[in-house]
């Protein structure tokens, strides 16, 4: 007993070491088990880079070609691994270039820690060279942020940053550290943060809500599950599958929820929202109970709110209390982490099949197949479709690849048609819709999961927003497969111009460079496909490549994505053409 006590005391006793603030930053990262970080050096962060040089056997720093690329790579890393992604940049423009990635991570609940250098504390507010108020700028797009001006505050700030980024509903955090704090020596000691007094990461499930939800679900005759990324973040895939199967309820996904249940699962009835599948959109307005799990009723999912599932009782499983009743009024809110609440509700749920109800989904799928899917996947007319490219990738990957998409038509087509066997396989910019996300995110994903096949799919527009990250792929030898679906248009905007602006194609036509030459300029193997008969072999060659590979597929110029719920329309007004 006595020796036990002594041992415990030894553990608690703080062992300190006198080191610089910049070394402390690197040591904190090591203590948080960070092995890869993405960033770009500059004046105010140079002391940290000097330490990264010393610790390069412990932390691999990936030099991206732009700080925005660093954030998206960190996001891709986080999304495929569930771990916190880390990006680092200098003050001023380095810091402001992080903003898009922060906003993207905030709206898509991605755990990310960004560390920025800042001018020395005595220069704060003096309009010093490369000074910018990044804490002020990043406040609305971070879950938490802070500025550190003393070396002694660095360990606690970073410990808190990692804890907040990862816990509860994850999100991006920014820690801004002045240059003098980086130089200052202090007695270093790192303690992981496990609690912040004012912060409740996982709300308590209110007594009786599980029972109330179960009662409604058991009575339902036409229930529909709509799930989101909450399942993926909480790693509740097994519990979710068990619930879906036991209750026999058709389940549809938001794009960030994709892959949490395999595409081939008989109860997976497809994608929700603006370019989602016909059946789940139509039947949202016919179900008697709508069970939302880990999703936030984004306007792209709901369409016109006044005409969204008004007939249904709504049950909302959610970790963030602010999402309850934010857009859709719920009858029962089950607060908590999805893994725990789904596990708890399972024994209360009756086994069911809902055969007739499920048949309605099948019938509507047949209509969608005839009117849309057949033409997308098995076109007979001239001109390659985006859909048939995705189909070829499915054939080659057997559904095991992680698909990283950018934003636009190709994204919707990829999400609609990609087959996913494994969770955390659909990495895309959902909420913010950040063109340029795909390529750098794919780098992060590949580095976090080197054993997985990672296919980056972009359009010719978004690809050119972060095309410089080909340099990162080359330098890092990241075996990312890069597909550009080139229609020489900003396709989604063009589609809207065609449908809603009488074909006035204002600034949507792209005069594109020789993409193959550009890839080859970065010493990346590259090929261009323009004909249907070349496609299968080219995709096969790309997928079999052991190193990075660039494939440009020239697709029909004015292809459109259907189905479509026009902006502001009800989900039942979904159009097939």
């Amino acid at each position, binding site marked *: 007993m006595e020796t036990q006590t002594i041992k415990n005391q030894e553990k608690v006793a703080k062992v300190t070491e006198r080191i610089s603030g910049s070394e402390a930053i690197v040591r904190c990262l090591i203590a948080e088990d960070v092995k890869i970080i993405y960033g770009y050096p500059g004046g105010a962060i140079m002391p940290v880079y000097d330490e990264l040089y010393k610790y390069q056997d412990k932390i691999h720093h990936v030099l991206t070609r732009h700080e925005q690329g660093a954030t998206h790579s960190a996001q891709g890393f986080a999304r495929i691994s569930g771990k916190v992604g880390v990006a680092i940049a200098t003050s001023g423009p380095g810091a402001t270039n992080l903003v898009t990635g922060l906003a993207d991570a905030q709206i898509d609940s991605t755990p990310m820690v960004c560390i920025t250098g800042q001018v020395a504390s005595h220069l704060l507010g003096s309009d010093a060279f490369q000074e910018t108020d990044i804490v002020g700028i990043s406040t609305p797009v971070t879950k*938490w942020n802070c500025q550190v001006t003393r070396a002694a505050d660095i360990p606690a700030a970073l410990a808190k940053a990692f804890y907040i980024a990862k816990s509860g509903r994850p999100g991006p955090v920014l820690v801004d550290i002045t240059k003098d704090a980086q130089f200052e020596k202090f007695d270093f000691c790192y303690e992981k943060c496990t609690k912040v*007094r*004012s912060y409740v990461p996982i709300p308590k499930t209110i007594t009786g809500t599980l029972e109330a939800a179960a009662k409604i679900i058991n009575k339902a005759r036409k229930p529909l599950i709509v799930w989101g990324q909450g399942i993926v973040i909480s790693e509740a895939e097994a519990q979710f599958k068990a619930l879906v199967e036991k209750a026999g309820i058709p389940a549809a996904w938001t794009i960030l929820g994709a892959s949490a249940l395999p595409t081939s699962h008989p109860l997976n009835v497809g994608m929700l929202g603006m370019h989602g599948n016909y059946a789940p959109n139509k039947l949202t307005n016919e179900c008697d109970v709508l069970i939302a799990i880990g999703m936030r009723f984004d306007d792209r999912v709901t369409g016109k709110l006044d005409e969204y599932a008004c007939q249904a009782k709504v049950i909302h499983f959610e970790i963030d*209390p602010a999402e309850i009743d934010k857009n859709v009024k719920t009858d029962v809110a089950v607060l908590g982490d999805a893994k725990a609440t789904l596990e708890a509700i399972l024994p209360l749920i009756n086994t069911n099949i809902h055969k007739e109800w499920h048949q309605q989904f099948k019938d509507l799928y047949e209509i969608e197949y005839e009117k849309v899917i057949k033409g997308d996947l098995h076109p007979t007319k001239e001109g390659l479709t985006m859909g048939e490219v995705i189909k070829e990738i499915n054939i080659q990957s057997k559904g095991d690849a992680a698909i990283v998409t950018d934003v636009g038509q190709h994204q919707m087509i990829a999400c609609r048609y990609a087959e996913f066997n494994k969770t955390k396989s659909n990495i895309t910019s959902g909420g913010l819709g950040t063109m340029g996300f795909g390529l750098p995110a794919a780098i992060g994903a590949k580095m976090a999961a080197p054993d997985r096949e990672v296919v980056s799919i972009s359009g010719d527009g978004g690809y050119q927003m972060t095309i410089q990250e080909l340099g990162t792929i080359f330098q890092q030898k990241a075996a990312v497969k890069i597909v550009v679906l080139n229609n020489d248009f900003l396709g989604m905007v063009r589609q809207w111009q065609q449908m809603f602006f009488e074909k006035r194609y204002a600034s949507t036509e792209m005069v594109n460079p020789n993409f193959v030459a550009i890839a080859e300029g970065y010493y990346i193997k590259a090929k261009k496909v323009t004909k249907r008969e070349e496609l299968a072999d080219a995709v096969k060659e790309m997928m079999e490549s052991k190193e990075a590979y660039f494939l440009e597929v020239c697709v029909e110029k004015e292809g459109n994505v259907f189905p479509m719920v026009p902006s502001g329309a009800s989900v039942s007004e979904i159009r097939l053409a």
Partner: protein
Amino acid sequence: MNKEKQLFTISVYTENNIGLLNRISAIFQRRHINIESLNISPSEIEEVAKFTIVVNMAEDNVKKIIGQIEKQVEVIKAYYHDLDEIIYQISGLFKIKSELLFEERQIQNIIKESNARIVTVNKEFFVLEKSGKKEEIVALHNQLSDFGIMQYTRSGLIAVTKEEMKISELLETYNN
């Protein structure tokens, strides 16, 4: 019933951190909501700050705003109340030429009747302080403005609630 705009006070108990004001005000700014008044002060609990924010909005929207405020990491708890549920005060300061105090009998009557307090008097000016409801301070302002006011300022609303807030108990549960 909850869609009609009315005045609400939002009380936010927070950790006392740099930047939190920015974070909280951004929640209003982003939704294009005007803050009628804002006061930040220590609270009944050591090292816990209290924001008192007055807004004119529909109850449904106030509830959503409360959710967004509570979501901030360093916010301990946020509440909203209508004006009937709180005891509140606003303070007004009036700087007026001293000569008026002696030349205009009417001013002395106004001061007496309004229960305003003279904070200081010197050769050039005197300062009146009046605490109460907004309407009382506005009324006093209207009366005095006929004579000329050198400077006028009004504080944000501060309030205590009729019901118990139980922040200490809440903090106790957080600490355990």
